[in-house]
């Protein structure tokens, strides 16, 4: 178990080396996908390795010359990595429009990193009407065609369904890990859980599946830490949380029972149905309104209700907002989330996640008063 967790930690701490090595060994193309909704299965079926773009551990330096400081950490860090040449092992990048940062980013990447393959999808908002679904399918078909041209390999119904099944398996296994944590809070540390999900984004799913199959029985043998104050974390759109913040939450006497985070339960939510029209099945997954994603333009489904449901289901005593600094979709939603949590008597605390300077002292103070409020220690 420790060996597998160590592998996950190493990969997530330094994906550059591992991915370059993997590529060299397997002679396959690696394609970076901008989070959070791209159909990775299509890239997988094209015989390439899709990886989700990550936030580096370094502060932005050279990237400053290309992107303003008031953009989210993931975007700035990606630009920084690109201009530093750290991403040269990526054969291509696929973006889509879900926020303004992602909308304008390809111009900078194209000018400064020139990946051999670059695709940009205009995935629509979840507005009602048949035109949305049709256009979405057109966009997925366009991606499929361009990958076939780039990779010189046809993506058949069979190959796409095979990829879908590998991805579904991964979703099921990750869901199993989550169920374990829900059952025995404290069984898996916050930073471990994040590495488990994040590593799935950065390695072939087949390998991740094998590792999870080994890991799950081992995890079951663990005994959870003492029962503590149960909290749910949510938010963290697109990016990982500094593991130190997760450690801090736990060191202050809280236990994360569940989450609604992208590098968390959102990543593996909703399986894709195998069918004669797999592209349409992938579109159906995108069109799902749950978990609610604030980037998808769905005004009817209330994200707060969804988080409250998680809180109640897990008998959590409070909720921690992980808000990525300068992330508009979450920023625009936050006042309503906060208000509704209060209306439901659910204590909430806001942690703003900055890429470079994360003032742990300030975070500690906030979390300390939070735990006092929720009556923990």
């Amino acid at each position, binding site marked *: 178990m420790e060996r597998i967790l160590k592998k996950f930690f190493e990969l997530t701490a330094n994906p550059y080396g591992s991915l370059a090595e993997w590529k060299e060994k397997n002679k396959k193309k690696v394609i970076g996908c901008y989070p959070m909704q791209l159909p990775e299965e299509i890239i997988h079926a094209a015989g390439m390795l899709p990886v989700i773009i990550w936030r580096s551990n370094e502060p932005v330096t050279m990237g400053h010359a290309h992107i303003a400081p008031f953009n989210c950490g993931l975007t700035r860090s990606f630009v920084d990595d690109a201009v530093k040449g750290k991403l040269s092992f990526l054969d291509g990048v696929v973006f889509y429009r879900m*926020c303004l940062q992602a909308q*304008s980013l390809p*111009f*900078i990447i194209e*000018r400064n990193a020139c990946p051999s393959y670059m695709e940009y999808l205009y995935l629509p908002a979840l507005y009602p009407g048949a035109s949305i679904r049709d256009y979405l399918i057109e966009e997925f078909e366009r991606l499929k065609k361009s990958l076939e041209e780039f990779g010189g390999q046809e993506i058949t119904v069979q190959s796409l369904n095979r990829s879908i099944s590998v991805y579904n398996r991964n979703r099921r296994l990750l869901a199993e890990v989550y169920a374990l944590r829900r059952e025995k809070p404290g069984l898996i540390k916050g930073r471990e859980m994040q590495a488990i999900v994040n590593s799935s984004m950065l390695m072939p799913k087949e390998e991740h599946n094998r590792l999870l199959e080994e890991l799950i029985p081992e995890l079951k043998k663990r005994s959870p830490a003492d029962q503590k104050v149960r909290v749910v974390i949510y938010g963290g759109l697109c990016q990982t949380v500094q593991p130190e913040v997760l450690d801090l939450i736990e060191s202050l006497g809280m236990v994360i029972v569940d989450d609604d985070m992208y590098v968390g339960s959102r990543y593996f939510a909703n399986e894709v149905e195998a069918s004669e029209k797999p592209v349409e099945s992938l579109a159906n997954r995108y069109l799902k309104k749950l978990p609610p994603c604030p980037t998808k333009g769905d005004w009817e489904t209330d994200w707060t209700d969804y988080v409250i449901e998680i809180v109640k289901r897990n008998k959590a005593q409070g909720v921690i907002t992980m808000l990525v600094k300068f992330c508009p979709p979450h920023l*625009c939603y936050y006042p309503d989330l906060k208000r509704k949590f209060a209306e439901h008597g659910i204590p909430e605390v806001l942690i703003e996640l900055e890429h470079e300077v994360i003032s742990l002292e300030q975070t500690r103070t906030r979390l300390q008063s939070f735990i006092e409020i929720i009556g923990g220690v």
Partner: protein
Amino acid sequence: MEYKLNRLKTTSLIGPMVDKHWEGLRLAKQKGEKVAWCSGPLFIFPYAMNMKCHFMAGYAAYCGGRNQADRLLEIAEDDGDLPDTCSYHRLHMGMAAAVEKGIPVKEEVILPIPDLMISGRLCPEMSHYAEGLYRKMGIRVVGVDAAPPHREEDMLPMERFFERQIKENLIPALEEVCGRPFDYDRMSEILAVLKKTAELRNECWEYFKKTPSPWTLWDYGVSIAPVFYLMGNPETIPYYEKLKAELAERAEQNVGAVEPEKYRLYWDGWLPWGFLGKFIRKMAPFGAVPLVGRYPWEFFPHPERIEPYPDPVRTFVKQVYSDGGLARANLPALALPEICKWIETYSIDGLIMFSSKTCRMWNMGHPDTIDEIERRYGIPGVVIEADMVDSRMLSEAQIDTRLSALFEMIETRKKARKR
């Protein structure tokens, strides 16, 4: 340096027209008229149904121009908004909170609660504002996704998608709210007035080519409503006729808007609606005059291509995408060739990239655009980081330093060219 800032007489006529528009909106409910709020370029559709309609960015510019932005932003923050959020979004949330909680604000910035909110998702935040207001007030929303393309080849599929959403979603929603069929004839009439006004506007644009230029981008900025959210209003035609006559007179007498004119500038991004006076007073002493800008220039219309009859929806859709500039103005990749064209047409000496801290539509890609223009034309540029309406995000010192740096660079380049 001794300088003179010559204000145009005609632009003083805009204030009353704009006030009348917002007043009409404010009083609409009392008169039993239907009201819409709109983000993105779709307000022509409620206009065609004789509805009164707000326009998200126009409202923000109006609040900025009336010095009411800071007050509304303060209310929004008291109501839970965080300052990094798009300030246009915050302005609306502030206004909604003021109405909801009876917080006193100037009457002129109050808007009536609409019968329909049109979420034209040109930028994802335009959707977030409608989503937020829906959650706050439960107002009916209709969404039209309207992404700007990165490449020319994406234009037509997107245009088709845009048109389909208008026909299948927006028009039926308006018909339902108003209880009658969509008025295509009225839409054509609006477009016919717009075409005439925009033709005159284009004739006015010709005067930007003159040295010294008889008017500035700021003058055009305040004159933009007639070719935008005042479209279809018959008063817009005489406004531009008067403006054209005044510009012709100035050109005849060789009168510049800024005298002496020394540096001709391109301005990228939103106009700083809350601070137009402040910026021009900082530029004019250097003889610097902003002449052309991506936002006010390339947002539709392109009158030469407007065909009000027989299919107003088609021509409108093309104005936004393949025939117009809106779809080309938003993303740096397609905007770059346009910027190059303007540099040549208007003999530009330098670029100011106005990087809005809370609007990531207009801050991404600025350094790379400067770099590219510098490479192609040897013209320098600077980035000014601020906000279009939030005064706390404006640093006088930064503006001064960046402007001085720009003018020094222009001088150095000019000297080098002479040698």
